[in-house]
């Protein structure tokens, strides 16, 4: 299967709602990054995690290397949260520093 499986492919939320995205990995990964791609196509780094959980404002991300998954939770969704969210994982073997990306989650937040 795909090395990085990201779900859901698309998500619609009303302002103020909470929801989460998830990435499953086919193998053990060293780290994960979460990005938001805005309407101009710019990839904005949200989180880098080698393990555990990080929070930043209304966003929280968890990475469990052993269980091979990572999540991104969005709390109190706002219109400006709309965009495509990607997880990207770095392999744990050898000099495998490249990022392998999920297919993305298209998030639409409506009033």
């Amino acid at each position: 299967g795909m090395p990085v499986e990201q779900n859901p492919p698309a998500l619609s939320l009303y302002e103020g709602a909470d929801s989460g995205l998830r990435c499953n990995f086919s193998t053990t990964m060293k780290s994960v990054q979460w990005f938001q791609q805005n309407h101009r196509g710019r990839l904005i780094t949200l989180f880098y995690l080698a393990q555990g959980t990080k929070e930043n404002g209304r966003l929280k991300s968890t990475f469990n290397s052993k269980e091979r998954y990572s999540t991104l939770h969005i709390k109190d969704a706002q219109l400006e949260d709309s965009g495509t969210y990607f997880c990207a994982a770095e392999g744990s073997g050898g000099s495998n520093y490249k990022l392998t990306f999920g297919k993305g989650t298209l998030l639409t937040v409506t009033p």
Partner: protein
Amino acid sequence: NAGVIQTPRHKVTGKGQEATLWCEPISGHSAVFWYRQTIVQGLEFLTYFRNQAPIDDSGMPKERFSAQMPNQSHSTLKIQSTQPQDSAVYLCASSLDVWATQDTQYFGPGTRLLVL
């Protein structure tokens, strides 16, 4: 800190022409990565340099694509004899040091290449 700079932002070429894309990594970053984004394939790794040395080009198409990093302040991705299927957004990223504890990759705005 201007972040990762990529030029040009948009490029239109005719089939068979050459395209050169430029990337200026964040000052002080030792690792530079190139990725490509298409609707069909999503985001794919192409190649990566560390301290200007090519480390992994496993994602590069074997023909027509080449990348160089002649100095620590810029890298180029060259596509010879461009084909319509090369149309994509080409993204450059840099990180402080892949040996560091947290080697976050920071991405540039991308170059949108259209081959007619």
